[in-house]
């Protein structure tokens, strides 16, 4: 949600717009490496849940494997908490936080 153009000219401003700045703070979901999950399984999860292409899913999977973590999605806090819960459902190790919280996430 963004502020509407010409809002100053409207006699009765849309108060729902007040929440916009909070919703605009981006969050990220980070998947962390673990020694158990199979590379093929992680690729499967990224393709099935996020709908990523094989190439993108493998790239993110390799990033998790080789660098220990990968940012796999960004969006609202609500969406990221949903993504983290889904990752935990699959047995992946994942966390979410505001995207400006840490440089590495």
């Amino acid at each position, binding site marked *: 949600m963004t502020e509407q153009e010409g809002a100053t000219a409207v006699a009765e401003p849309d108060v729902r717009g007040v929440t916009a700045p909070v919703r605009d703070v981006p969050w990220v979901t980070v998947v962390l490496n673990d020694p158990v999950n199979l590379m093929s399984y992680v690729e*499967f999860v990224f393709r099935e849940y996020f709908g*990523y292409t094989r190439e993108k899913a493998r*790239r993110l999977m*390799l990033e998790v494997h080789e660098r220990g973590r990968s940012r796999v999605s960004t969006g609202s806090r609500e969406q990221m908490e949903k993504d983290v819960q889904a990752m935990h459902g699959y047995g992946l*190790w994942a966390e979410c936080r505001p995207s400006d919280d840490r440089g*590495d996430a």
Partner: protein
Amino acid sequence: MRIIPDPNRGRIALQMEDPEQTIITTLLADVSQLLSADLPEPDDDPFLRLVGHLDPDQEVTRPRDPALLRLLPDADSSDPQRSAEYRRLTERDLRESKLHSIRIALHSLGQHPAPISLDRDTAHAWMRALTDVRLVLASRVGIASDEDAVRLLGDDPHADGAEVSETEEAILSLYELTTWLQEHITQFMLDGLPDDGEDLDDGDDDLGDLPGDGDEDAHGAGGDDPRGPDGPLGDRG
């Protein structure tokens, strides 16, 4: 154990001997028990159940058992307060979703002694349930890093003088069995995913140039945007 994928029918068959069937059943039941512990009985009334679920006074404690904690991780290990809040709201659903997969897997084991024939939905549940079984086994035997895995699952776990008890060796063999099984089921599931759009993936399976392909996902670049043209995330923000 034999595994016979039948991609044309969208099924995969597991041919197990009796002892193998008993082992897999026991492992699944053990994880089910772990996940069920301390889980309060659901209210019969769906409304009461929902209210109870959202009751801020209802305490959901962080698991002390490292294996259970690995199944039900923190949402942000750097923020205990938010992790506790998240746990209060989601842990029950997460436990029930995991228990659901285990129940499906256990149910299909009832087909024994005929080959256990799994459709994709059932194979999906098996994959998830086996993941949780392996996470618990790994936690019990101390596989906490890739280096642990290499040492304990290598040709000689006793290399560098490490003590490995008989119990640990037994757990490691169970871990290897379930890993083998999960690998095959996962490959079957991967093969059955719809092909990517050719305009996006270009059929290029070559991974060799990945680190240097200079695309938008460069790690830590700050401006990377996972919402590529191929993902469904574009409408989430």
